[in-house]
């Protein structure tokens, strides 16, 4: 299409408007976080860090952050590990019921979190077990597993089996082949999967509202309970911290991985 045609200009304008729509909420949170005014509202009256300072002094928020980081980190490790194993089974082997099992493992994407939340709590109630951190953790693993599986599978399809067969014909056993050949080739997908599951876990609210106890509240749950009163500038500051964290993490990871590959080459 000609760049100068009216049609293309309208397409571009529409796209820009969609970007504005998507980004205004994010920008507004960040801007208001620096507004010194009491109620976190417009107009801006200068520039201050007072809400960030207040945030840093709020012990319950710091605790929630710790919980979220630990939960997200453990979820990423567990979910990526079992996700890689499952992906290997699906791509490298043929067995009965493969499609059914694949669909089953991907189904948490399509099942509403509210239903998952109720279902798991109900099961726990039946077993007469209290809610716990372990429950939250395995719940998050199930929630994030489909994404890891999809990402790792997609990459694994692209890795030729010949590499693995070559290693095996040179005398490596299955585990050695995986560690020396498959794993390094799979690494970008593994990192992407781990990041995805960390972010999903760190950000999850609906299922976590069901599963979290008073002791292991996560940041989103904390924000949710703060919102019950009203929207305070502290929430905007907290939001800004979360935005910086969740956006900076993948960017940093991308930068580091590029740096590492450069060093190797």
């Amino acid at each position, binding site marked *: 299409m000609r760049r100068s045609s009216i049609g293309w200009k309208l397409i571009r304008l*529409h796209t820009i408007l969609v970007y504005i729509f998507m980004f205004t*909420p994010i920008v507004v949170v960040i801007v208001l976080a620096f507004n010194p005014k009491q109620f976190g509202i417009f107009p801006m009256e200068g520039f201050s860090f007072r809400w960030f300072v207040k945030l840093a002094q709020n012990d319950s928020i710091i605790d929630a952050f710790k919980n979220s980081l630990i939960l997200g980190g453990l979820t990423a490790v567990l979910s990526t*590990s079992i996700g890689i194993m499952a992906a290997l089974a699906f791509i490298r082997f043929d067995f009965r019921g493969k499609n059914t*099992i694949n669909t089953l493992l991907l189904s948490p994407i399509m099942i509403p979190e509210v239903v998952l939340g109720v279902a798991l709590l109900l099961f726990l109630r039946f077993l007469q077990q209290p809610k716990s951190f372990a429950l939250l953790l395995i719940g998050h693993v199930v929630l994030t597993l489909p994404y890891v599986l999809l990402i790792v599978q*997609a990459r694994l399809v692209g890795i030729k089996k010949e590499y693995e067969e070559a290693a095996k014909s040179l005398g490596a056993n299955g585990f050695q082949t995986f560690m020396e050949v498959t794993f390094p080739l799979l690494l970008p997908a593994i990192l992407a999967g781990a990041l995805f599951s960390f972010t999903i876990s760190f950000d999850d609210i609906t299922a976590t*509202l*069901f599963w979290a106890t008073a002791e292991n509240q996560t940041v989103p749950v904390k924000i949710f309970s703060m*919102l019950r009163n009203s929207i305070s500038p502290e929430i905007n500051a907290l939001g800004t911290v979360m935005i910086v964290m969740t956006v900076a993490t993948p960017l940093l990871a991308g930068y580091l991985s590029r740096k590492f590959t450069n060093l190797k080459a």
Partner: protein
Amino acid sequence: MKSNSWKPWALLAPSMTAVFLLLVIPVCFIVVYSFWLRAPSGADIPAFQMGNYAKFFEDFFYPQILLRTIRISFETVFLCILMGYIPAYFFYRSSSRHKQIFLLLIMLPFWVSFIIRTMSWINIMGDTGLINHFLLRIGLIQAPISMLYNEFTVLMGLLMYLLPFMILNIYVSLEGIDKSLLEAARSMGCTEWQAFREVTLPLSLPGLSAGSLLVFVLTAGTYLPPMILGGPGNDMIANLIFKRVIGTLDWPFGSAISVILLALLFIIVWTYNRYLGINQIFKSFQGN
């Protein structure tokens, strides 16, 4: 490929155990519980009766929430297509060097906290929010207009959450179109618009429909946007489940509503799979 060896099963064991213990069995429990009775004391009594379902359909209050959920889901799908198709087409046709950055930017909100983005609509549309501040400032209005806590704001929250899913699905589908088909159409005398209508649009339908299914399913089960941006009359079915289970601790009734929601989604997904095939839907996640 080896077949019937024990290895794939060993590799699948941990994830299958997790999904069975935390998904399959618990969902079976919901179904069983939905037939139980709730004693006036609050205890749950094992039974097999349809009372919970009868209660749901006994007057118009609960079915109305179900219908609203279905209507809002269709509205969201429609709006996502309306707003999302053009940006996807823009990425597809753009020859800009910065195309990758544009794409990355549309993915960026995925990485930004959902609750923060949802809550921020209060910053924008609240009585003291961005829009009212702007309108007051230019003198168009004398007092703030209240815009929050209605179906419109709920839709705003849903759109902001789901639009990237739709754009990505359509884009993946568009990117798969062989560009020589377009050239052929053009060389045979089609106008730009005709080529789009006859070639590009039909070939992008798999992505469009996959995106629609995903958006529908995610909307139908949504909890947060109606909770934060909706008023009392905008509850969707997930809000109802939450209120019955966490609020009034009525587990059997909450289970029955969950089963109704699952049944709705199952019918939608089954019908879709029957006619269109489900696999397209997972492609957009693999692209990145």
